């Protein structure tokens, strides 16, 4: 695999809590530019831990993680924000800010990264159009259905044009039909060229999908 094409490189990563509880053990895999990878495993298998290590919310006990060639675990604190801008995050519960409109929820991501006002409107509308929510731009999150909220969260993750979209159980709170819709949305985004790493415990949902799988059980790759 060409080095330039690798967006995420997880190499021999272990995470041990309190010197005894092993959450991850020697996990290694890569995600290439434009690839769709499924991270599957039951609850407690270490999927969320792995994602937290990739975003440098935590440090691995051993091994290395590289995002676009940059070694995440040895990054200087000041360089963490810049690295995170290369990633888009989607969580199980959406994590939208309840008192802000959908537009504001997405725009603030651009504002905190120093984008210009003109740019912001254009990018927010284009991200909302991609997820099919352009008509809900001034709604508050509680006025949206669960599926729509998750779409808004995906728009927020996309608005910065990340190299890699990290989704941690993005359909965990949704019923099967809506889950399928969300999954299709990730597929669509991936077709536009963004790499996706989607973590899920729901093997039924991803059954039959042609994407490569990284299977975790009790913190080990199987």
């Amino acid at each position: 695999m060409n080095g330039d094409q690798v967006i995420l490189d997880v190499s021999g990563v272990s995470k041990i809590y309190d010197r005894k509880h092993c959450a991850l053990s020697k996990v290694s895999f890569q995600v290439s530019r434009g690839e769709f990878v499924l991270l599957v495993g039951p609850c407690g298998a270490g999927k969320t831990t792995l994602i937290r290590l990739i975003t440098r919310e935590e440090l691995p006990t051993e091994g290395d993680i590289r995002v676009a060639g940059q070694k995440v675990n040895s990054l200087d604190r000041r360089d963490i924000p810049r690295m995170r801008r290369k990633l888009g995050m989607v969580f199980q519960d959406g994590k939208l800010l309840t008192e802000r409109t959908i537009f504001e929820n997405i725009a603030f991501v651009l504002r905190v990264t120093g984008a210009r006002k003109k740019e912001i409107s254009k990018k927010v509308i284009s991200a909302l159009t991609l997820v099919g929510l352009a008509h809900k731009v001034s709604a508050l999150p509680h006025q949206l259905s669960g599926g729509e909220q998750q779409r808004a969260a995906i728009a927020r993750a996309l608005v910065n044009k990340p190299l890699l979209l990290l989704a941690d159980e993005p359909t965990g709170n949704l019923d099967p039909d809506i889950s399928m819709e969300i999954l299709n949305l990730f597929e669509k985004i991936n077709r536009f060229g963004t790499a996706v790493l989607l973590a899920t415990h729901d093997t039924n949902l991803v059954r039959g999908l042609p994407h490569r799988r990284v299977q975790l059980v009790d913190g080990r790759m199987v």
Partner: protein
Amino acid sequence: MLGYAIKEALSSIKRTKLTSLAATLTLTICLFLLGLFLMAYMNVKDIASKVRGRVQIEAFLSDQVDQKAAHALAEGIRNISAVSAVSYVDKEMALEIFRKQFGDQALRVLETNPLPASLKIELRQKDRTFSQVKKISQEIAAMPGVMDVEYGRQWLSKLDRLLSGVVATTLFLGLIVASSSMLVVATTIRLAFHARKEAVEIMTLVGATPESIARPFVLEGAIYGFLGALLGSILLLFLHGLLSRRLVELLFLPPSLLMGLLLFGALLGALGSAISLRGTGR
């Protein structure tokens, strides 16, 4: 970026109206007290400088010292660097002054003039402190021909003590005000921070720098401090007007000091906020 920070700070203040009000009012009291002591210091200093204008040393000469020797003595005293002027009062002039003050009666029984000739010594403004006046008086008292030296020993030392007392209290109060104001702001910002914990968490994950996350909070603290100082100054102005009308004409803080108080308030707020955010930006 700054526009965004201002908007965020204002919306946070709006969201936590009651806590914001409590913080602003506590800061108002703190900065009002500081302003009050600054005003007290200014007024005591003003009175002190007026009183000091009248400070002088009087050296009484023995009768053996004739006019020529007195002038030579005056010349010697003039050479002391702290001395700005020396004037000679001979026995006759002393008698005249005494008569003017107490009338003829008191001296009528005496045949000779009992009042000694003297030298009135004025000091430079900056040397009119108790310790300096005392030192120079002792120096003059040791000169041949000087019988006794008189200066406002009692009240001069009292005045100096009062002034240094007010300075010490103002400084002490300044420290207390500064630390308690910062504590109030730190607590308020902690609450605001926790109220927006989720937003902060998301900001962190989307790659906002710790500085850009902290900026609205620091600004919010500065707004509390500034508003506290502004309200405190208005309260002080009101009290000053009341005292000046009812009791005694007082000096108010000059515009530069007033501006300083406002800036000090804003700085305290910003610092308090920054302290409370230490280590939370990640």
